[in-house]
């Protein structure tokens, strides 16, 4: 019989099995983030040319490890925890097949360790993308495959849990929006893992000699079929987390269920098709394919993100205005709980994802503009804005909620938690902005030495490129400090944080009576639908969230201006046809 406890602070119900699995996955994720962060420090201190910390071979090894541990292991472990939360906890149901879930977890751990060992042994410094025909040791690929199988099992457990919830009728009406977003992420994950299998399994067989040849161009197209859609998993997951956090923090409801859900659907329909923006300057792909793939397939997903970009802060604004924060355009924002890391982490993640990650991504994914950006350090700058701030910081903000709610601990060093999102995003923003700049000057990514020491021919980047990489270096160090603060708070809370037996009065409790948190419940009451609201207009000019609209228009103006600046820059380079 399943056992549940109700969190007296939040009112969330936790199935005992699901709870342990969420804890295990979240903690594993944090451990891999720690590894990734330390390796990231080595990377940035080498790219900062005046410091130039590591020798070439170690640099490439460390960069391979940084990319894989951060982008794959940290994020996916945490996402599995989110899937279990969004199904079992949010729908008040027991987790399907907990043994399978533990098997998946074990496979993920084994796979991640195996891959890390391969990289550590030194003959697998092939970067996260492992482009054939450069070859890594067989257990490099095998580790990734095992990890993917484990993650696939996690997705299946998630779907199974949804089925159980439906059969047991544990909720009324439709699934909540947050769960809907998680379903999106999981569906895309299944597609992703399928195309990952299509490319990684032959590559593994090739590395042990069973397959003679892997076509290098085909590898890139299929690899990015997986590589890009896996980024869509992240977007769907962190957008769901944003919706969850505005719900928890402000009692916000989506401005329109329909619009937000349609936007998630657009992710499913269009995102996993889009691989072309990674291969825009590869030989032999037709212009029609590239234009179609980047626009039809991608812009509809961009549209979806632009919609969430309005509706997430918009729903927060509506909720704040209903509480009476109606003065002017921005009182709802000024009077937000800026000292609460759950809020500041969420909001910074949203802003930096939109302004830095979103805009740069669309610009460099434009067929012709990609010519002036491909493989420059601009590219890692872009995806640090999307995954290293957008996704990672959203997950960090969620962690600050989970410490009391899931782990039932008081936050260790709350002042540090309070500052962490600011330090992390300030550092990362600095690094991102200056790497964008250096990329525009042509500085290449995955490159050990801007001085080209030992080359037969000589080349010098302009002095500004060095300055930019140095400032990026300072930003990166600050970012790593922010990452360390996160780990000190989380690990400290789990080890030394005061245990919360009774309600600590941390959250408003969502109307659930406060009770000691023990596993007393056999089956929670059915999850009710959200209460109906009397329709009220709190904004001006018929707009429910005018402040958000102003912010969204500001984003659009930045977007348009920056987009055309890049066309202008493109027009200045050598004619090609």
């Amino acid at each position: 019989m399943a056992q549940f406890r109700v969190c007296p602070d939040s009112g969330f119900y936790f199935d005992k099995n699901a709870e342990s699995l969420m804890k295990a996955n979240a903690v594993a994720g944090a451990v891999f983030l720690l590894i990734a962060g330390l390796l990231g420090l080595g990377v940035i201190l080498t790219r900062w040319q005046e410091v130039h910390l590591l020798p070439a071979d170690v640099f490439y090894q460390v960069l391979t490890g940084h990319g894989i541990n951060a982008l794959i292991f940290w994020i996916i472990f945490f996402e599995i925890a989110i899937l279990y939360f969004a199904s079992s906890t949010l729908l008040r149901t027991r987790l399907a097949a907990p043994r399978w879930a533990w098997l998946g977890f074990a496979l993920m751990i084994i796979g991640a360790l195996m891959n890390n060992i391969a990289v550590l042994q030194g003959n697998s410094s092939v970067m996260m993308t492992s482009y054939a025909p450069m070859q890594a040791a067989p257990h490099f690929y095998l580790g990734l495959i095992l990890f993917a199988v484990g993650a696939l099992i996690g997705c299946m457990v998630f779907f199974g849990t949804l089925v159980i919830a439906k059969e047991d009728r544990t909720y009324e009406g439709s699934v909540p929006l947050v769960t809907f977003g998680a379903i999106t992420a999981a569906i895309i994950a299944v597609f992703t893992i399928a195309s990952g299998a299509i490319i990684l399994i032959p590559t593994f067989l090739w590395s042990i000699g069973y397959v003679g040849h892997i076509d290098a161009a085909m590898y890139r197209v299929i690899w990015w079929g997986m590589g890009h859609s896996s980024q869509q998993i992240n977007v769907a997951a962190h957008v769901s987390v944003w919706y969850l956090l505005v719900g928890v923090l402000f009692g916000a409801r989506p401005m329109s269920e329909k619009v937000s859900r349609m936007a998630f659907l657009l992710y499913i329909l269009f995102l996993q098709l889009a691989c072309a923006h990674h291969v825009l300057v590869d030989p032999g792909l037709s212009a029609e394919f590239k234009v179609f793939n980047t626009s039809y397939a991608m812009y509809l997903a961009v549209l979806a993100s632009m919609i969430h970009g309005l509706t997430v802060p918009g729903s927060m604004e509506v909720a704040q205005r209903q509480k009476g924060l109606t003065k002017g355009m921005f009182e709802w924002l000024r009077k937000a709980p800026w000292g609460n890391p759950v809020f500041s982490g969420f909001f910074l993640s949203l802003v930096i994802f939109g302004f830095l990650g979103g805009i740069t991504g669309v610009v460099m994914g434009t067929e012709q503009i990609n010519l002036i950006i491909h493989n420059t350090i601009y590219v890692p700058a872009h995806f640090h804005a999307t995954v290293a701030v957008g996704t990672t910081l959203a997950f960090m903000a969620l962690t600050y909620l989970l410490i009391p709610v899931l782990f039932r601990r008081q936050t260790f060093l709350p002042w540090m938690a309070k500052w962490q999102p600011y330090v992390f995003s300030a550092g990362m923003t600095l690094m991102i902005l200056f790497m964008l700049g250096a990329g525009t000057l042509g500085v290449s990514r995955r490159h050990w030495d801007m001085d080209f020491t030992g080359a037969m021919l000589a080349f010098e980047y302009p002095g500004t490129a060095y300055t930019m990489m140095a400032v990026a270096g300072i930003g990166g160090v600050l970012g790593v400090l922010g990452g360390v603060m996160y780990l000190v708070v989380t690990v400290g809370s789990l080890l030394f944080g005061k245990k919360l037996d009774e309600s600590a009065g941390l959250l408003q409790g969502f109307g659930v009576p406060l009770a000691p948190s023990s596993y007393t419940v056999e089956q929670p009451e059915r999850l009710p639908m959200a209460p109906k609201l009397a329709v009220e207009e709190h904004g001006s000019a018929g707009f429910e969230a005018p402040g958000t609209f102003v912010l969204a228009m500001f984003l659009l103006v930045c977007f348009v201006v920056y987009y055309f600046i890049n066309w202008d820059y493109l027009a200045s380079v050598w004619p090609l046809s």
Partner: protein
Amino acid sequence: MSSFLPPAERNWWSTPVGKQEVIWVGIALVWCLIMFLMMPYWHLYGKQNLSSEAYQTTPAKFQQRVDEMVAQYQVGEEAGMPIVKPPVGSDVYMLGRLWQWYPILELEKDQPYRLHLSSMDWNHGFSLQPVNINLQIIPGYEMVLTVTPDQAGEFTVVCNEFCGIGHHVMLGKIYVKEN
């Protein structure tokens, strides 16, 4: 508190959408369409477009074509590498291999050339500096594009796709002379 509760209305798909969201979706959609149209527009009126001309090849075949060009049009040598000055408008070749771009090319300003690029071993990145044109060079594939250098001077090809321990010494040169 309803983003994580089931929607308040059972038929949430038929509840009306607020004016603000409708307007924003409209604006965003128009913007996406403009961005879409910019790409075909640039194919018609812009000067920087990548051709989709490419052939499957083998390292040996490509190497042979490079060697023929070098034998015919070599005009000098720098750092042990031949400098080649092929005729205006002709097919010119450059190969990437661990860890050099070979050979050095000498071109005339404002004249078109058909540039063929391929790799002998792994992926390489053709990154022309300081112009900042970046192309992915893949073994087994020969990419052909028409370039018209519109500045005179010394240009460097940096390798910007990771290609092993010597990646950072992989440089090539293109000299563009006024005619």
